[in-house]
């Protein structure tokens, strides 16, 4: 596609349920990033993919969070047993260069609300 696509754009879920967030990067981009942003805050790094592998998972807040990327393209971020503190905007970005020398292109994010 022309840009990074994220779905859904908004998700309201009940506490304790699992959610799956999807990111479709720009075709050909090898690097893919997930971030979390709480209201009025900066971007919290979650995980980074280079191709299908994740060299750095250090930002995942807990073992309830996991992410995968298949075919060097689409990525899904899964949050199990959601908690209210998981409420935030989840942003995905892709870049054509794995070392981050090139600019990153962002999707519009998924706003997750846990009630």
């Amino acid at each position: 596609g022309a840009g990074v696509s994220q779905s859904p754009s908004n998700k309201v879920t009940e506490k304790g349920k699992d959610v799956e967030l999807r990111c479709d990067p720009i075709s050909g981009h090898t690097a893919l990033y997930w971030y979390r942003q709480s209201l009025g805050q900066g971007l919290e790094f979650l995980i980074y993919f280079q191709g299908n592998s994740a060299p750095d998972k250090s930002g995942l807040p807990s073992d309830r969070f996991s992410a995968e990327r298949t075919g060097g393209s689409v990525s899904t971020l899964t949050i199990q047993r959601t908690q209210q503190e998981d409420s935030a905007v989840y942003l995905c970005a892709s870049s054509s260069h794995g070392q981050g020398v090139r600019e990153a292109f962002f999707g519009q994010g998924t706003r997750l609300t846990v009630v």
Partner: protein
Amino acid sequence: SQQGEEDPQALSIQEGENATMNCSYKTSINNLQWYRQNSGRGLVHLILIRSNEREKHSGRLRVTLDTSKKSSSLLITASRAADTASYFCATTQGGKLIFGQGTELSVKP
């Protein structure tokens, strides 16, 4: 902790004035980037400055980099109401792109 820290956290100016935002970082970098975010959604890349560059211009934007002080500044000249947004600096570290906390700029008409 975040690699980049912006200063000030919030800035309010009148249309036509210049806006300066600063970013400090902690470790060695290959490059530093500035992004803009409207309405809490996707970020848009503004400019990238490499570690061997000291200054870069793009339209009304001027970015400086001082690697000895581990700091960068973003200057927006002749600001417009449409420049109202949050501005973030970002550095790369081992492939990770790490963002600061951002400066919230408000330009009043």
